[in-house]
Every structure is written in C-alpha cells, then in structure tokens.
C-alpha cells in the first residue's frame, strides 16, 4: 500500500497495515464518541436496550403539543429529534426539539436540558438560533426554536460549493455570535459544522448550545458533566477539552471554530501534523496565520476573543493581497499567473519614479538604456513576486526558513547595480559637460548618492508592495507563534 495513503474521512495518514483496512484515528474516535443519530437505534436488536431512543412519529407527537401543528420530522442527532411545526396563532414556523423520553427519568438529564434552554434563552442574536419556549409535556422534554429554512454547514462543505469568500463570511458571522455568547458568559463547547446552519440568504446561525457551560454556574458543573466525560465531537474538540480538564473556557470554542474554518477552506480536518491551509489549497497565505492561531494547542497562545478572529479575517477581506480562489475543491482552478498589482507598483516605483528622480534631481539625461534596464528589472521583479506568492508558507518554521527571501532582497540588489550602472554610464558625459567645475565632479559622492536614493526607492516600493508589507503586519500583530506537535 502506498505510504502516503490518507484517510478520506479525517485526512490522517494511514499506517501501512491499518486494522481491517480502517483508519486507526477514526476507530479511536468511534470508540469514544457516539456520533450516531439516535433515530437509527429504533428497532431490532437495539430495542433490547431500554435506553435507546425511538423518535416519536408526527402522529404520536401531535396530541402532546395542542398549541402546535407538527408538520414533519426533520432529523435526529446528539440528544434529541427535531420536528418542523407551525404556531397557528402567530402563523410562524418553529422547530421543536424533543429529548428521548427515557432521559426524563434521569434528574441530571432534565437539569442539563433546562440549563440548555436557559442558556439559549439568554441569547438573542441574529446568528444564534433563537429559543421561543421550553418545558415538558407528559414527561417529554422539548424546546421550541426558531425554524431555519436551509442546510447545515456539513452539507455545504460536502457539496463542495463553498468558496473561500463565503467561508470567510460564515466565519465572521460565527465570530459575531460567539463573541456575543461569550460576553453573556455562555460557552458553546460543541461548535462543529452540524451545529452551524445556513439559511437561504447564507446567514449563519449557531444551533445547539446544548453542551454549553454557564461560567457563572461553576459550582455544580462537575456534577452535571462528570469530571472526565468527554463531550462534544472529538475532531472539533480543543485539546484541553479532550483531556477532560475543568479549565475549558470560551477559548475552546475558538479552537473548534479554527477546525471548522480549516475544514471549510481545505475540505479536510486538521489532524496531527497538518499543513497550513494555503498548502492544501490556493488561498491568501495570511489566512494561515488566522487559522493556525485559532488552532494553537495552548489556549493562551490562541486568539483570546472571537472578535479578534473576525478583525483579522476582515482585514484580509478588505485588503486582498491576491485574488479569490476556490475552497474545498480547488482542482482545475489556478490563480492568475501574473500578480498585476505587483506589476503596477513595480512599474511605477521601479521605472517612473527612479527616472523622474534621476532626471529632476540629478539633472541627468535619461538614455534608452536606462529605460530598458529598468523595464527589464521590473519584469524580473514581477516574476519574482509571482514566485513569492507560489512559495509554500509554513508558519511552523523559523522566520528565516519559512520564506523565500529572494523577492525581498532582489529590489535592493537590482537598484544597487542600476545605481552603479547609471553612474558609470553618465560619468563620462558628466565630465564632458561640467569639465569647467571639476570640484563638483566627485564620482564617488555621486555614486553613493545614487545608491542611497535608489535604495530609498527600493524600500518605498517594498513597503507598499505586499511581501515585506505582509511580514511587517505579521510582526506588528505579535510574534509568529509556533505550533507545537
């Protein structure tokens, strides 16, 4: 078997002898976390087990909710089944989530359920699924929620229709919602694509704050969730959540958001020694930093607030360094091969500005050779900028090795030689013209002045063109964080 075989589900590299041909990582995950929809436990052998859950049919449910018209069954997951219903009085559609009847017997389940309802009811935000009501009817616990006509993010990711621009919009909205919830003291703790709904207008709505922990209630937290009980879905869990420690705060959501973000951009999960998104698909390399900083194993190194993620994403959206490229399925789509913006800046700063300076300040004649030389130089620089953009970027490396430094150094080198070249070419003419005043004809001073002038031009143009500009921005926004493990 090929050594680089990857698991199609989690993207992890498979060992040469996977047990029964299955991905070991997924097997471990399957052994720990129940990801199965409860409705499937409904018959046959499963019926032997008292705790398995039959989703009641619409007919069974209707008598329990006289105030609602139950329309259809939508789906079941995690800890309940969801139905579409109508409130005739208000003439609006709602979603009704009900819990398995059996769990009502367990007081801790009931407590957890009412906690979910209260946590949700506190939240009122356009990007959070609103809760209208909750309670129990004949021992059946239910939540009445805003009905979202759309799909969940999992479907969208699978369909491969998500472009990076839309991913960024979704992330911004999730950040808004999370920031709001975190400010209210509510941590979601189970952010995953299944819990992010997209309505028809592509608005993102976070659902199921069911596992959320109210920071204000830390007192009885332990009794509610069990010390080591691993909650949420494994792949999206922050490391501190996996360890089952009590120090799980809102930054765990930021980690999960990072996983979702990575998955939206690349179509894969960031498992083990994963590569930065820009190595998997073509996208703005600045996104790597955002994603990887969200995915820091140490909460302290992560973004501390959801808003910060949004700010950085917004910065990238507002100042695109490169173009919009595809997300999950990038196959067949290539970036425009020539970075036109680089070409523009180089042409202005590299040809017109130097020639203008040479002509106006140094009072020199401009020869066709000068123009040709500078134009060739600009072409070379543009090409180099292109190489720069294609250069794989890995934030895990040290600052020296993670970049191709040629494009940064090239303008300096180029202008140095052009400076010398210009000077040498015009020295003779200079002497001929101003032979009467030899005191001014100090070749060395001229040469130095040329080089200094052109170096300033090089710095100016680099600062206004992205490679170094990027680096400076990164440097300002904090030291490059290294990923561990």
């Amino acid at each position, binding site marked *: 078997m090929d050594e680089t075989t990857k698991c199609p589900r989690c993207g992890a590299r498979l060992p040469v002898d996977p047990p029964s041909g299955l991905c*070991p990582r997924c097997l*471990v995950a399957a052994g720990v976390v129940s990801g199965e929809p409860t409705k499937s436990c409904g018959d046959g052998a499963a019926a032997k087990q008292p*705790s398995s859950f039959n989703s009641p049919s619409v007919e069974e449910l209707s008598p329990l909710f006289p105030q609602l018209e139950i329309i259809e069954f939508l789906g079941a997951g995690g800890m309940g089944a969801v139905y579409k219903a109508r409130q005739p009085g208000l003439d609006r559609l709602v979603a009704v989530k009900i819990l398995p009847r059996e769990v009502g017997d367990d007081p801790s389940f009931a407590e957890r359920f009412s906690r979910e309802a209260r946590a949700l009811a506190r939240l009122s935000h356009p990007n959070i699924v609103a809760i209208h009501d909750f309670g129990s009817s004949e021992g059946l616990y239910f939540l009445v929620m805003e009905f979202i006509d759309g799909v969940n993010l999992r479907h969208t990711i699978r369909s491969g229709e998500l472009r990076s621009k839309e991913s960024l919009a979704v992330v911004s909205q999730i950040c808004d919602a999370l920031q709001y919830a975190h400010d209210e003291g509510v941590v979601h703790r189970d952010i995953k694509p299944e819990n992010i709904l997209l309505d028809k207008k592509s608005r993102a709505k976070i659902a199921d704050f069911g596992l959320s922990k109210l920071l204000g209630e830390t007192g009885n937290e332990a009794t509610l969730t069990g010390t080591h009980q691993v909650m949420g879905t494994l792949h999206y869990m922050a490391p501190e959540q996996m360890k089952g420690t009590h120090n799980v705060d809102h930054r765990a959501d930021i980690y999960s958001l990072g996983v979702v973000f990575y998955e939206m951009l690349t179509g894969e999960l960031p498992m083990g020694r994963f590569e930065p998104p820009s190595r998997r698909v073509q996208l703005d390399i600045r996104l790597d930093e955002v994603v990887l900083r969200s995915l820091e194993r140490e909460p302290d190194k992560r973004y501390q607030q959801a808003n910060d993620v949004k700010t950085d994403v917004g910065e990238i959206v507002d100042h695109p360094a490169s173009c919009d490229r595809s997300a999950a399925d990038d196959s067949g789509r290539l970036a425009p091969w020539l970075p036109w913006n680089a070409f523009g800046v180089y042409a202005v700063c590299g040809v017109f500005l130097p020639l203008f300076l040479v002509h106006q300040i140094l009072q020199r004649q401009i020869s066709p050779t000068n123009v040709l030389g500078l134009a060739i130089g600009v072409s070379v620089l543009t090409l180099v900028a292109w190489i720069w953009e294609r250069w794989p970027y890995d934030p895990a490396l040290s600052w020296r090795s993670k970049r191709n430094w040629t494009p940064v150094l090239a303008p300096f080198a180029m202008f140095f030689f052009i400076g010398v070249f210009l000077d040498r070419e015009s020295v003779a003419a200079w002497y001929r013209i101003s032979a009467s005043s030899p005191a001014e004809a100090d070749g060395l001073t001229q040469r130095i002045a040329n080089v200094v002038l052109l170096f300033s031009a090089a710095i100016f143009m680099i600062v206004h063109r992205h490679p170094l500009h990027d680096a400076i921005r990164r440097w300002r926004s904090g030291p490059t964080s290294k990923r561990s493990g």
Partner: protein
Amino acid sequence: MLIMDPLLDRDACSPSASDAHRLASEFATTHWSLVVSAGSVDEPAARRALADLCQVYWYPIYAYVRRRVGARHEAQDLTQEFFSYLLEKHTIAQADRSRGRFRSFLLTACKNFLSNQREKARAEKRGGAKAVLSLDFASGESRYQFEPSENLTAEKLFERRWVLALLEEVLERLRVEQVEAGRGIHFEQLKTAITGEATAAEYANAGRALGISATAAKQAGHRLRKRYRQLFRAEVLRSLADESELDDEIGTILEVMGD
C-alpha cells in the same frame, strides 16, 4: 469487583446495564486487574491472563526493542527473553498499583529489562530463551520494515503500536463475534460504518450485497458501531487495574493518535 459505571455511556444509545455486566464477566477472566491483585503469576488464572495480554500486545514491544537495539535477531531474542522473564519471574509484584496500567507496566518492565541486559555481559551468548509465547517474528519484522523512521522515538512508536494492536484486537473480537453469529459477511460489508457515518450510497451498496434494504443496512451498521464501542471500552478496561482510570487512559489514547 468491578464498578461498571465507566462502561455505561451517558447518552441515548448507551449499552444496557445487562450488556455491561455481560461484557464485564467476559473480560474479568483476562483482566489486568486480576494479575495485579494476584501480585504474582503463580496463580494459573493470573498467568493465563498475563499471557493472553502479552499475546495481544507483543508487537508494540517488539517494535520498541527493535528500535532501541537495532539488530533484528538480537531484538527477537530479547523480546522472547523479555516475555519469558515477565511470565516466569515474580516481577508482577513490582507493578505499582497506583500506576496500574498494563501499558505503562509493560513499557517500564521492558526498559528495565533492556538496561539490565545491557549491564549483563554483552559477551554472554544470547539465544536459547525458552519460548513462552508463540510470536510470529517473521511477520513482525516485515511489519517493522514499514514503520515510519522519521522522528519517532522508541517510546512513541511503542505507544502508537499499542493503540493499533488494541484496535486490531477489538476489531478481531468483533469480527469473530459476528462470524459466530453467522453475520461475517455483514461485518465485511459494514465495517466502514464503524468509523463514522457511511454515505447513503455506501449503505445502498452494502445492502445490495447483503440482500437487505439500505435502511436495514444502515441500522445494521449502527448496531455494529455500537457493539464496536462497547468492545473498545471493554478492551481498554481490560488493560487497566482500576476502572477509575478508564477515562484517563482513553484520553492518553486520544493524545497518542492525535499527534
């Protein structure tokens, strides 16, 4: 002896209490806790339990020794010697109950064994260790050849191999169980459902091969997955001296596979 709480899931699809008890009795006979509480391998039951565990987890030890020692034949001899030493000497008494995991015990014992062996005259002719377990070194060696060589310490290699051996054991138990129930073909067709939700098309294909509907295939897949989870937890539990360590051990396994 066993408190069965860790076996009981807290979600809707948890195995029933009777299931858990059945599992417990099934595994109690080969439980590591049995060896630890016996304190020695003099008792036949304890010895059998230990041998059984070693038979499942020998390859991780071989990979560890092989990485430490380097030479193939020496590693094979040492592995065999280590297991005979383990099964015949009274080393179990040294197993500290507080660190009562078979995994850590095995690794520590192996480390000590190797350093003792090194101190003993190297000149001493090796070989001739009485084979107490039948270990398939030929297949072990060919597997070892495929181990990734890059930046994996012997300990890490051991841990990874441990988890893989555990998964293999769980799957094998599941397979045997299904075959015995006359559902061997179900296992083959539906095993991809264990690692997560297969797509509707996969279920439809499996259903066709089994002559059942896609819905029935899906349900069978979920039942298989659930049974897998029970066996997984039971197998992890089997290598622990104390059930309270189950969650912690699972956390370790997650971390091993997460890197």
